[in-house]
């Protein structure tokens, strides 16, 4: 999984590969991508004058475009490199992640997408705060957003630095500064319009690159995936098609599954995309497209992973990078030589860049729209001031992301991303569901749910075996699970319900009928 993005530093080049050497073709593709996306940003900057354009792309994105943009925001380099690597080195176990990464999308569609579009303006806090007291709800929601975004950003930055060093031969710090600068340019000048189109270009490149690679693999096996799987089983034993060590502890598997399934519906940068389309119907249709694109992509990881296992070999893959992250680029090199390796490497870099831009924009929206405009200024800020604050927040977040990326160099990326999903699932998702569905919920209930959901997740991750045993080298951990979602999601729901029942919020109950109507019918 994303885990594997933990790029290992030492290389033992036992296989003949040009990975790690400056690759002219990779550079050319990469600078072409930067040039095209900066061109898009220039075009978008001239169309970004209001907050509606900066945060929500003027709400004129079509469902098809938003489907691609959602897929672009969601499919990180982790899915592409990490899952392919995991399948190529462990076989079936890697496929557990291919499925887990997709099953959150139907939940987003059924429970969240339409009410979110109808009740909110720019952030998911708009929905939670719709009939509750603004100040406490906005502060709690910004806490959940910034915690989720920070851990996700660190994971992407650390992954980017390691990958770029491995693929282009640039230094880790140079790579992080390039990613930070390009991402700031997109968001600062082009806002959501540029970010959306960068996601669309990136999703097209990633899907196209992966499909081309998968076709080239299948061409070697008579276009029959089963012939490929059979070849893998013949060479490495039938056990590669069966569950292995990865799910030795069933509760760990269930807990991770819960984080993935409900975390997707609480990711701020994904939720923010639903405001870019004209109405709830378009929001709904865009999830259908996104699920199809992402599902197709994860089905291709079956072929890429087993293809790399058979055509490159697990030992050769692990020799280049212990975590297996270089499986897809190595496969490209075997099938299409250095030019194809260069193309796939550039696609992986573009992928990270786009995800980082989406994350930064959602963090900037939490800081400026939720905290500055609604808490500090009580909604009394004009459009120019809002844009100024949003851009200031973007620069601040960009600098923080670069510094965190350098500070957390060599950290385990897996743990950072599972943390981001667990916080989103426990801090944001229960509050969204309760405030949308339950008439009786109160400001106190929702705020406690968000704060306790976020804080308990952070605390239990700190006490988990991943931190205590793997990183701090203690002999045992106080909390047995690697991912706390199994405990923290029910806890967050329970706190929200009990505190609501113990308090009264007459204003919230009074406003329920109107909010309930607007959630379905939209603005009158």
């Amino acid at each position, binding site marked *: 999984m994303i885990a594997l993005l933990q790029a290992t530093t030492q290389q033992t080049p036992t296989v003949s590969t040009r990975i790690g050497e400056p690759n002219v073709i990779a550079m050319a593709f990469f600078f072409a991508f930067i040039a095209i996306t900066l061109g898009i940003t220039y075009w978008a900057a001239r169309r970004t004058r209001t907050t509606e354009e900066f945060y929500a792309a003027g709400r004129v994105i079509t469902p098809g475009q938003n489907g691609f943009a959602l897929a672009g925001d969601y499919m990180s380099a982790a899915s592409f490199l990490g899952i392919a690597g995991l399948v190529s080195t462990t076989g079936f176990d890697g496929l557990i992640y291919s499925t887990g990464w997709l099953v959150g999308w139907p939940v987003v569609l059924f429970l969240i997408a339409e009410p979110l579009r109808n009740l909110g303006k720019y952030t998911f806090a708009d929905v939670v705060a719709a009939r509750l007291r603004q100040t406490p709800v906005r502060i709690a929601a910004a806490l959940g957003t910034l915690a989720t975004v920070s851990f996700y950003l660190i994971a992407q930055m650390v992954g980017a630095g390691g990958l770029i060093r491995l693929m282009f031969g640039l230094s880790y710090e140079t790579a992080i500064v390039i990613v930070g600068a390009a991402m700031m340019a997109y968001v600062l000048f082009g806002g959501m319009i540029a970010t959306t189109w960068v996601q669309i270009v990136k999703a097209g490149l990633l899907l196209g690159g992966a499909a081309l690679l998968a076709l080239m693999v299948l061409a070697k096996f008579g276009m029959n995936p089963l012939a490929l799987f059979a070849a893998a089983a013949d060479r490495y034993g039938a056990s590669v098609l069966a569950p292995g060590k990865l799910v030795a502890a069933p509760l760990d598997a269930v807990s991770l599954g819960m984080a993935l399934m409900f975390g997707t519906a609480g990711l701020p940068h994904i939720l923010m995309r639903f405001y870019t389309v004209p109405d709830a119907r378009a929001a709904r249709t865009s999830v259908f497209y996104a699920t199809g694109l992402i599902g197709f992509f994860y089905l291709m990881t079956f072929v890429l992973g087993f293809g790399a296992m058979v055509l490159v070999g697990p030992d050769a893959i692990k020799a280049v990078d212990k975590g297996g992250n270089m499986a897809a680029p190595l496969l490209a090199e075997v099938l299409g030589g250095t030019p194809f390796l260069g193309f796939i490497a550039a696609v992986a870099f573009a992928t990270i860049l786009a995800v980082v831009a989406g994350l930064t924009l959602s963090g900037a929206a939490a800081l400026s729209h939720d905290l500055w405009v609604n808490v500090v200024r009580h909604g009394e800020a004009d459009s120019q001031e809002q844009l100024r604050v949003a851009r200031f927040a973007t620069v601040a977040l960009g600098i923080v992301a670069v510094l965190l990326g350098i500070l957390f160099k060599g950290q385990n990326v897996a743990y950072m991303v599972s943390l981001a999903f667990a916080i989103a699932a426990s801090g944001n998702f229960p509050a969204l569901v309760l405030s949308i569905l339950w008439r009786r919920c109160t400001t106190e209930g929702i705020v406690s749910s968000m704060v306790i959901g976020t804080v308990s997740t952070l605390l239990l991750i700190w006490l988990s075996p991943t931190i205590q045993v793997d990183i701090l080298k203690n002999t045992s951990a106080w909390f047995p699970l690697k991912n706390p979602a199994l405990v923290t999601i029910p806890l967050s729901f329970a706190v929200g319900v009990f505190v609501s029942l113990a308090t009264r919020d007459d204003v919230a109950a009074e406003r329920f009928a109107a909010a309930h109507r607007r959630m379905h*019918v939209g603005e009158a």
Partner: protein
Amino acid sequence: MSEHRFHSLAETRWRIAVSLTALMVAIYFGFILLIAYDKPLMGRLLTRGLSVGVLLGALVIVLSWVLTWVYVRWANTHYDAGLDEVRRGEAGS
């Protein structure tokens, strides 16, 4: 009249949304629990190159998409038509 129509429509949407969510949860956690508690079954080969586990994994992905299709189809035809009726009722009153 419009008020009654709205409430039954909203109730139907939530019933369908919650049932489909429950179905998705059952499908995915069914798959995870089979992996956790019946590894031999998941490793059994159905034909050369295809184990039960690989087939079910692909099915989870395909079914997720089919469920979104089922919901979108229902919502685009029945739910949206109902909403239009409610909106017209509002405009008329």
